[in-house]
């Protein structure tokens, strides 16, 4: 009974900000007031007509797709090599690839800016994609290394004895069996890139900025509930990705594995 109450309290604490945001998003007032004096959808209408915000959302979606593709393309083979092959420097490579997970993003962002600026990468698409990779790649490597390490190596050996070339083994045995991990890694990469604000703040330029950065800038200058409406849209997007993954493989299983 006490445990139940604790769980409810913990959920309440975690969800409270979202509840406030959702309530304000449907406000009819021009300011961020709680409780809202009346209900309306006017801020959603404002949001969808706000060209700058909509363009930023599109850019962020494209960027997240690129970052996810690159993270998987680089991270999956790297994770496979780390999990399966024995080569000198294996531990060091794993440590180097996953270390950014332990650093404060502020430090990573500043470091990236210092390195990127002289090369003219700041404020560019490649610059933003590379910066986001610094966060998503370690995550993909981490998830996929675990996913590959838990596959019994006998299965791949068996496929090879049955005449499968190494490429066939990868596409018919290894990757299908690592699919839950792959989907989880892709979903998390996408959400993190789409949501990333701290590092992006260092890298974005006047003409190229992402949705979270636009949001951040907007709340600096405005006090209307449009941002809350946008937050609701983002929450729905995150929930649908999680539900999709859950539907496909069982999110709880893949992330906790």
């Amino acid at each position, binding site marked *: 009974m006490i445990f139940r109450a604790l769980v409810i309290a913990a959920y309440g604490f975690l969800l409270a900000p979202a509840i406030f945001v959702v309530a304000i998003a449907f406000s009819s007032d021009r300011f961020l007031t709680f409780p809202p004096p009346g209900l309306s959808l006017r801020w959603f209408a404002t949001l969808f007509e706000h060209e700058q915000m909509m363009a930023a959302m599109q850019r962020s979606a494209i960027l997240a797709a690129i970052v996810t593709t690159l993270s998987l393309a680089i991270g999956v083979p790297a994770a496979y090599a780390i999990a399966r092959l024995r080569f000198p420097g294996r531990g060091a490579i794993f440590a180097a690839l996953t270390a950014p997970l332990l650093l404060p993003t502020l430090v990573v962002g500043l470091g990236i800016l210092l390195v990127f600026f002289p090369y003219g990468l700041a404020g560019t698409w490649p610059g933003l994609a590379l910066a986001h990779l610094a966060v998503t790649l370690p995550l993909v490597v981490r998830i996929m290394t675990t996913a590959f390490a838990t596959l019994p190596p006998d299965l791949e*050996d*068996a*496929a*090879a*004895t*049955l005449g*499968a070339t190494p490429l066939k083994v990868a596409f018919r045995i290894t990757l299908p069996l690592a699919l839950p991990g792959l989907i989880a890694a892709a979903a998390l990469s996408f959400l993190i890139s789409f949501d990333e604000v701290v590092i992006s703040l260092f890298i974005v330029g006047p003409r190229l900025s992402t949705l979270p950065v636009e949001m951040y800038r907007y709340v600096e200058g405005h006090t209307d509930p449009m941002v809350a409406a946008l937050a609701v849209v983002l929450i729905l997007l995150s929930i649908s990705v999680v539900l999709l993954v859950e539907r496909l493989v069982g999110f709880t299983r893949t992330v906790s594995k």
Partner: protein
Amino acid sequence: MARLALEGLTKAYGTAPPAVDGLTLEAEEGEFLALLGPSGCGKTTTLRMVAGLVPADRGRIRLGEEDITAAPVHTRGIGLVFQSYALFPHMDAVGNIGFGLEMQGVPKAERQARVAEALRLTRLEGLGHRRPRELSGGQQQRVALARAIAIRPRLLLLDECLSNLDAKLREEMRGEIRDIQRASATTALFVTHDQTEALSICDTVAVMHRGRIEQRGTPEEIYERPATRFVASFIGRMNAIDGPAPVMTREGPLGAGETAMVRPHRVRLLREGAAAEGDNAASGTVRRITYIGDIVQVQAATPLGPLAAEVSGASPLWRGLDVGAPVGLAWSSSDTLRFPA
């Protein structure tokens, strides 16, 4: 369906003594050869080298006329039944069995026919559309076997593949594996630490110890005429008497620095007062009586050291015998082997 020849095969892991040390062994076409040895003797490493899963440091592997020492795994055409079965969990039995044929590019119609044949041979009809986790241990083991033979391998390798089954099923599968191997006339190498398995299903047994072959022979030769002390003590139960002692062996009297060995079931148990028969005898006191069902083992302390005799469980000889009772033991010199200690 080819002759297998291993010549001076060697594999060392790190700086430890080689796991496989200059091993030379042959299996004739269609022969069912057991590689028998205690765990850690290098038998699994040998099998993995033959399959191509572990590279050999030195030596040659020949299959038929071909030298396959350096051939990539997927080109060898060797069927391997893993101890873990290694069934693909995301495919049903048909998918598992057909996988090798698909890799070989066998057309779909022929593939289906051959999968059906493999299912029939392994008595799995009707279970083709089950996933591995929906099959029992024995059925999984059959799918693994069917998958390995479906590719019509030049050589079939079996890696301790019965050890995960319970005793009764294991006995049943032994017979089935033997029948399937014989029907397809496939050369087969069966790696096991279980001597009963090796002796009961294989044409030939090679006993392996410390990375080398100690003796290769028919099950009867291995059991009746072990070539080394290791083989004698590893196969079956053995009494060992260290010389010098007043014991006659097949090869003459037991001298210093030698060990005489005799199987407990060749030692007769004599109750007090009975006349000794045979040319070797000892008297002692009963230390332990172990009832195994069809046989009873009586262990006695004698001046020659501890000796065991086995009698039929139905025999009246052991009835009423208690620990501490005086007994006589007698055995023939023709059943007594002699080895340098």
